[in-house]
């Protein structure tokens, strides 16, 4: 029988020093950056550059070697050893490069973006904390440690969203993000509880190894192994196996902003825009997908179905919401949610590689989009003065920026086309791969499982629409701010961003081109997909999902042409509709500028994101607060009331006793005293000392006695 202790034996490898460096450098940046004051941006950027170099070096060195595990013992609970372990495989390496590289670009970009902010040392310190936490998620191969860093990522996100803490909306958004993430984490903890109970370990390698040997017996999920030679048989209801997967997925629902917890992400745009690019687009929100990839093989069929459906719903809902936003960052935020929905759905349908591929391509083009938007916002802010107050993120004040900032426009366009999924751009490859897998999956499952497919394809259309709408509104037509403010001189003052901001954006735009991943239109032939291993489900057979790996390549090929055609066609339709509606001087464009919010039922539902937020605020939050107040009242009045009542009762009772004591018990005493006193007086009055009276008394008494004796 398999022994747990053998699996989790400590293991070491020289790579541990590199791993420590990868974690320690950003953490050191967090600790030390504030000390450098005005030099803080340079210092932290330098450290991140160093870390990126290490990540790249490691990738080149270990790309072709087998995966490496490093493990140590953390603490002991009775017989159970709690471990920590690292895993370095291709996925880890690629994620390390992406996280560090985008973090580096954002550090660079922020040099300019945050130049005038007094608190920038704090800003860069928090970026370091974020990079550290994110690297923890990437490097650890132990669910407990993934969870630990998962929470730390939540903390750094909280700190960065609320970076401008004097703004009330920012601190509220930070709270919302943290609490929504925590809600998801309840699931994560529950998943940890289930897996620990069954396998006595959090180590993913141990969980996976023991999962292979677990069985379904009569509806029960039985794990049998030895720990230190003691035989252990753990039996749980079979449903807990699905529950474990779904519970862990809840964590991803929070972090990767999936339905129904996604409402925090649009609000998170309160943070500085480079933060949105790094955390709320490229890396942190992808952590959920990454985690799903790590636990992919222990998810059973039912859990995977839930994942797929949630992903599809999220993708669709967010795409609808992105159609009508005014705030450029909100459009990007909803599009991020929508794309994350794709990734999650990909994991759910078993398209492991395609999902990860989309994670990678999306990281670049979405970071590019956010940073470009950051340039626009930054440059617009420069026009602000006491007389000219406006919201620099509102697309209604933009328009025609193509002429003012052509370089930004060009980069934005490249990334946007990748988002829309047009051939030649990276987004096309990965999205296409997901859609193909989805089509095959739906064919296998049949029935209601065509719904996710329909939702996903509809999302393609909407994505094309909102992307082009955004481009048209921001870059084409006339610059609307001078018109609104009636100050024509503003137009001339709007300039292109400087090279510190443009270089990172240009790099990201270049990385959005499909040749980066291979000169092909088929994702199968990209180096990324070829490099990724194909995982096999480890859950007991009767619970396992049908793997896409078993589907013949012919099936894929037969569908490929059709899927390609439909997705490109839908994207183009979306683009054309958007063009017709929002081209300069078109009807919708005119209306758009004048409106405070979209009209009509559809417009409202889209603008308010299906009223989900309002529902949470009005129904759930209010309910919890009312309940809290009611309980507080109950606590004060009822529970404490009983205690106080008891005390009062005792006091009253004591007073009663006192009265009783005084007037009854003491009264009796007094009565006794009084009576004996009276009797005493009576007898005393007899003894008057008058001899005649004594003789008289004796005489009377004698006569009475004689009378008594005679009769």
């Amino acid at each position, binding site marked *: 029988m398999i022994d747990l202790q053998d699996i989790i034996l400590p293991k070491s490898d020289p790579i541990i020093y590199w791993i420590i460096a990868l974690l320690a450098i950003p953490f050191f940046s967090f600790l030390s950056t504030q000390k450098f004051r005005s030099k803080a941006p340079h210092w932290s950027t330098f450290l991140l550059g160093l870390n990126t170099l290490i990540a790249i070096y490691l990738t080149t060195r270990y790309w072709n070697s087998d995966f490496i595990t490093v493990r140590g013992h*953390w603490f002991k609970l009775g017989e159970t050893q709690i471990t920590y372990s690292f895993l370095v495989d291709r996925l880890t390496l690629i994620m390390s490069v992406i996280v560090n590289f985008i973090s580096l670009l954002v550090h660079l970009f922020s040099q300019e973006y945050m130049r005038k902010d007094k608190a920038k040392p704090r800003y860069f310190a928090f970026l370091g904390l974020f990079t550290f936490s994110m690297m923890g998620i990437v490097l650890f191969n132990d669910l407990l440690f993934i969870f630990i*860093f998962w929470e730390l990522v939540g903390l750094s996100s909280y700190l960065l969203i609320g970076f401008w803490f004097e703004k009330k909306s920012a601190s509220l958004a930070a*709270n919302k993000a943290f609490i929504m993430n925590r809600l998801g984490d309840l699931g994560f903890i529950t998943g940890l509880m289930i897996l620990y109970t069954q396998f006595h370990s959090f180590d993913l390698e141990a969980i996976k190894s023991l999962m292979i040997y677990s069985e379904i017996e009569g509806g029960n999920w039985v794990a049998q192994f030895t720990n230190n030679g003691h035989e252990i048989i753990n039996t749980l209801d079979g449903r807990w196996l699905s529950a474990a997967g779904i519970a862990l997925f809840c964590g991803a629902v929070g972090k990767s902003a999936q339905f129904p917890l996604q409402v925090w992400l649009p609000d998170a745009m309160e943070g500085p825009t480079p933060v949105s690019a790094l955390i709320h687009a490229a890396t942190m929100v992808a952590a959920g997908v990454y985690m799903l990839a790590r636990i992919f093989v222990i998810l059973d069929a039912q859990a995977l179905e839930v994942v797929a459906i949630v992903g599809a719903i999220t993708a669709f809902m967010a795409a609808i919401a992105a159609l009508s936003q005014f705030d450029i960052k909100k459009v990007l935020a909803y599009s991020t949610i929508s794309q994350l929905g794709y990734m999650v759905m990909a994991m759910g349908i078993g398209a492991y590689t395609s999902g990860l591929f989309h994670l990678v391509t999306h990281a670049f083009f979405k970071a590019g989009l956010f940073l470009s938007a950051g340039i626009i916002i930054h440059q617009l802010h420069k026009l602000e003065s006491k007389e000219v107050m406006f919201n620099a993120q509102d697309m209604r004040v933009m328009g025609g920026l193509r002429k003012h900032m052509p370089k930004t426009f060009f980069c934005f366009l490249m990334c946007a086309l990748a988002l829309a999924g047009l051939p030649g751009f990276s987004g096309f490859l990965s999205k296409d791969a997901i859609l193909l897998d989805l089509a095959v999956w739906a064919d296998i499952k049949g029935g209601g499982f065509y719904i996710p497919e329909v939702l996903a394809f509809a999302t393609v259309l909407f994505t094309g629409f909102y992307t082009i709408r955004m481009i048209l509104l921001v870059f084409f037509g006339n610059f609307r701010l001078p018109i609104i403010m009636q100050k024509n001189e503003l137009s001339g003052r709007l300039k292109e961003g400087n090279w510190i901001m443009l270089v990172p954006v240009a790099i990201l735009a270049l990385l959005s081109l499909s040749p980066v991943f291979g000169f092909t239109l088929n994702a199968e032939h990209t180096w990324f997909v070829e490099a990724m291993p194909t995982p096999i489900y480890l859950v007991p057979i009767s619970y396992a999902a049908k793997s896409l790996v078993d589907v013949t390549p012919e099936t894929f090929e037969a569908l490929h042409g059709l899927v390609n055609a439909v997705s490109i066609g839908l994207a183009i339709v979306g683009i054309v509709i958007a063009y017709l509606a929002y081209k300069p001087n078109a009807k919708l464009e005119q209306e758009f500028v004048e409106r405070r919010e979209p009209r009509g039922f559809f417009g409202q539902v889209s603008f308010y994101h299906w009223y989900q937020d309002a529902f949470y605020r009005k129904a759930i939050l209010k309910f919890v607060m009312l309940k809290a107040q009611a309980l507080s009242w109950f606590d004060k009045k009822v529970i404490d009331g009983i*205690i106080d009542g008891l005390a009062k009762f005792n006091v009253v009772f004591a007073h009663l006793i006192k009265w009783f004591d005084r007037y009854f018990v003491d009264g009796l005493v007094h009565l006794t005293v009084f009576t004996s006193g009276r009797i005493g007086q009576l007898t005393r009055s007899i003894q008057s000392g008058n001899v005649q009276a004594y003789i008289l008394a004796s005489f009377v008494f004698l006569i009475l006695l004689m009378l008594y004796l005679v009769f």
Partner: protein
Amino acid sequence: MVHLLSYIVFIPLVAALLVLLTPKVYQNLYRVLTVLGLGLTLVLIIFAVSKFDGSVQGAINSEANLQLVEKTEWFSMSLGSLGKFSVDYFVGTDGLNVGMLLLAGIVLLIGAIASWNIKEKQKAYFGLYLLLSSSILGCFVALDFFLFYLFFEFMLLPMYFLIGIWGGPRKEYAAIKFFLYTLVGSILILIVMIGLYNSVYDPVKTALEAGYEASQVEQVQQLVQDGTIKSGQIVKSFNMIHMADADNYIPGSFLEKSGLAKIFGQPARWIAFLALLIGFAIKLPAVPFHTWLPDAHVEAPTPISVVLAGILLKVGGYGLIRTAFVMFPDSAYHYSWLIGFFGMFAIIYGALNALAQKDLKKLIAYSSVSHMGFVLMGLAAMTVEGISGAIYQMYSHGLISAMLFLIAGVIYDRTHDRMIENYGGLASQMPKYTVFVAIAFFASLGLPGFSGFIAELMVFIGSFKSSAIPAWMPVVATTGLVLGAGYYLWTLQRMFFGKFWVKDKNWVNSLTDLNSREYLMLVPLVILILVFGIYPSLLLDLINNSVESFADHLFQFRK
């Protein structure tokens, strides 16, 4: 060092005497004496903990498991045919109390530093504080029930005066409520103690009394069971270790393991367990016996709140383990569902109540109620993970709540106002203070990296794994984590973020950032909370073996 534990317990008492003997002219010496005395105590405690060997393995009900034992007969008298009345001075440590001892040392010293600015009636204050310290430490190391009870009761007296004299506006009400409430619990404990005394004998002393060797314990136990040794020769005992061994119960006695004696048709052992449970649950405090806590905390001066939340509540948890669970494992198993439920309930109930509070100190007080729920749930689980989690939670909450009350004290010292709604945007006025508040809040809401996370995680996995309580309990209890995040972050947002604003303009100048004395208290706590969050073995290695044998002890009574 022999008598190490006695030094630890009585040094504060000696310091109290010195305070009393120092004339009032030198009243600035009182606080110095207090800090020195408790500092010395802490040094000795650290020495004792470093000498404590975590690898000692022994049953939880055998003296082999104990270390640093001191045991001498205190007094005894012969009661003729009723046997012999004997009380020992018996102190010692095992994994169950070593952590509590360390915690008490740390928090008492920090409380002493926090008392630095007490100006009123200094002699009385510091004398009482030291007396309180002595009785708390005594309570944690006493292993004779009589001695334990003595120390336990003796905590009430100084606490009553410390709240009642140096407290806030409603101090009299709070003090008397605290006193009476806890006294009710004490009476329940006293009754059980007498019952136990009448049922348990000391096998060693009985052997000597009946003319056997001290090594013939098992034989003597057999003879007592047979009735060969007559009741006149049986030496009854207050020894808590003997009370934990079912073989040491006199046949036919009231609390005997066979459980024939009944009260109201229920086995006497169950009733005795419930009495102990309620007695210590009041101290813990567990819902619905918790309402003394918010009042006591709100009215108590900062250092007393620190001691109250940091250690006194743990006396309740520790007492529950040491007496109720160890002595009545069968009853504990019978009631585990109930205890687990009340634990879960307290977690959510306390958190929801905290959400509704307007007073910062009350909010923290209710968060304590919520966190003590974890202790109950972990104990009810009866698994190694759950019990370790419960003990770790007591330890960790001791540090975190001490810190929370200190930071509440910082703002109260400056403005004499604790209402959350009266402040806004303090982060711009007091940035360093805000950092510490954020650390304390995040530590308390269970962020990984801080000690609270380890404790809560262990309680969760232990309770889910447990066969004594149903799996839905820990799952439902996880909502406490979200509520915890809710009330802390909401408080941070209302008090510290946004534009700087205070209700009273006069406060602006008094709201200065932390001073060096405050750093001296807060920084060590932050370090400790982090160290125990990142390196839990520091404590777990000490308690692991005891917890395991404790769990085994409980496990014997499971089906």
